[in-house]
């Protein structure tokens, strides 16, 4: 079902509630608009529901209440199969760590980014994948500066390089939106900065909308346009990154 949202709003959550089965309420009414081309940082203490929110927005978890509209597809509870396919076609996801297939090559892992299309199982390995997919995967690897590592096993790479491969895997499908859940939390500060620099730069250059969660407050000013803080299952504040003050952060993590 198409829903009327202003054209520059890519993603909208209204009154989003989420409780896990048998668990307490994690999200208790989240309202959020995400504008096209924006870089949004999601912050909050551990367990405040950042990962849960990202997964709900993508339709990976069923909602317990409220609705989400992504790319004009409105759903309550869960997206339909067709909606899910359309939403995921335009959305990339980057996880925190260990999300690559260790024993496969870097190229193979990037190709996996194309496995979402129906009937695409041939992309499971670079040996069986379609020729044009291999070319696209190589181009994505080039974008993150790892074309020379295409044949290396994923677990032979450093943590920072692995996260860059994960970013290439998200980019290969040509998404309009990338959700990144603590993409650099497992890296040392220097490697974290260089990965964020690359990630943010690629998103800016291609007009990809970017949502990331982070524990590093220095990243907010440098890589986000807007900051949304979660606390107690609600939005604590939602303001331009430049306007975030120290006591905002104190309230968030207190």
């Amino acid at each position, binding site marked *: 079902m198409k829903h009327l949202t202003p054209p520059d709003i890519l993603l909208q959550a209204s009154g989003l509630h989420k409780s896990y089965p048998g668990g307490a309420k994690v999200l208790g009414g989240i309202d959020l608009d995400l504008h096209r081309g924006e870089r949004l940082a999601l912050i909050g203490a551990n367990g405040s529901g950042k990962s849960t929110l990202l*997964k709900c927005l*993508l339709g*990976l978890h069923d909602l317990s209440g409220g609705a989400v509209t992504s790319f004009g597809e409105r759903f309550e509870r869960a997206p339909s199969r067709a909606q*899910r*396919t359309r939403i*995921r*076609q335009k959305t990339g*996801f980057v*996880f925190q*760590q*260990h*999300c*690559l*297939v*260790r*024993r*496969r090559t870097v190229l193979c892992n990037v190709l*996996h*980014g194309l*496995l*979402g*299309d*129906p009937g*695409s*199982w041939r*992309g*499971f*390995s670079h040996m069986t994948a379609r020729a044009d997919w291999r070319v696209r995967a190589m181009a994505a690897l080039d974008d993150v500066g790892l074309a020379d590592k295409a044949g290396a096993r994923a677990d032979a790479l450093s943590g920072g390089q692995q996260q860059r491969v*994960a970013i290439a*895997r998200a980019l290969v*499908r040509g998404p309009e939106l990338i959700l990144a859940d603590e993409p650099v939390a497992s890296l040392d500060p220097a490697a974290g900065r260089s990965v964020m620099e690359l990630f943010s730069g690629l998103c800016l250059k291609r007009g990809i909308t970017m949502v990331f969660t982070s524990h590093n407050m220095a990243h907010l000013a440098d890589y986000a346009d807007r900051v949304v803080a979660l606390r107690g299952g609600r939005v604590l504040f939602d303001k331009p990154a430049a306007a975030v003050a120290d006591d905002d952060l104190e309230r968030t993590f207190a």
Partner: protein
Amino acid sequence: MTRPVPPRLNRLSPLSFVVTVAALAVLIASMTQVAPTPDQLVQGAPRFVNLMDRMTPPNLDPAFLWRIAARIVETFQIALVGAAFGVLLSIPIGWLAARGVSPIGPFHVVAKALVSLARTIPDLVWALIFVATVGLGAVAGTLTITMDTIGFCGRFFAEAIEDADKEPQQALEAIGASKLSVALGAIWPDALPSMINSSLFALEKAVRSSVVLGLVGAGGIGQELKVAFDLFQYQNACTIILVIFIIVLGMEFVTDRLRARLQ
């Protein structure tokens, strides 16, 4: 020092005491029924020496050796083909039986139960079943090894699949990949080394069982062994036992080497 050193022996709880005494009683009662009496040992020893004497020297007549050689080839064929079928069938069966991954969801327990059944029935019993269904000979042996291998590999393949890294699987699911794509893309590469390891053990096991299958008529070298004992041709039996010893040892050597290379 504020606390005394704990005693070397903890006092038995009443329950452990009762269980220990009961277990000892069962053991002693059983020994009186099935353990050899000193008499039997004294009488058996010279007979054993006598048998050893009649077994040596082993029969090394070329005509006999050729016959044995043909049986050995058959034994290997049974082991190899049976294990290969078993390993191949265990791949889908292991997938069906793997908790949390199985495409049939909660019914994975049914697949697991069938694998347990294949495993708990001893190979000689499977051999009797297949001799009764497909007749005497090597085919019954091959089917036996296949069932045996499914019982073994089906279980370990399922465990390897269950133990595969979860994060890459979730990453592919988030992209919208199908169950088949997740299985091929993320689970298969992670489970493969452990599956190859199990397959090599299965092959070793298959060679060991295939040498005795002939005792119940399911083909292979065991058939010659049974004939030799039935006809009191103890020198033939000796040759066969030596050959079996060499085969099993050789097989273990080869699979050990292969496994070491895989590490």
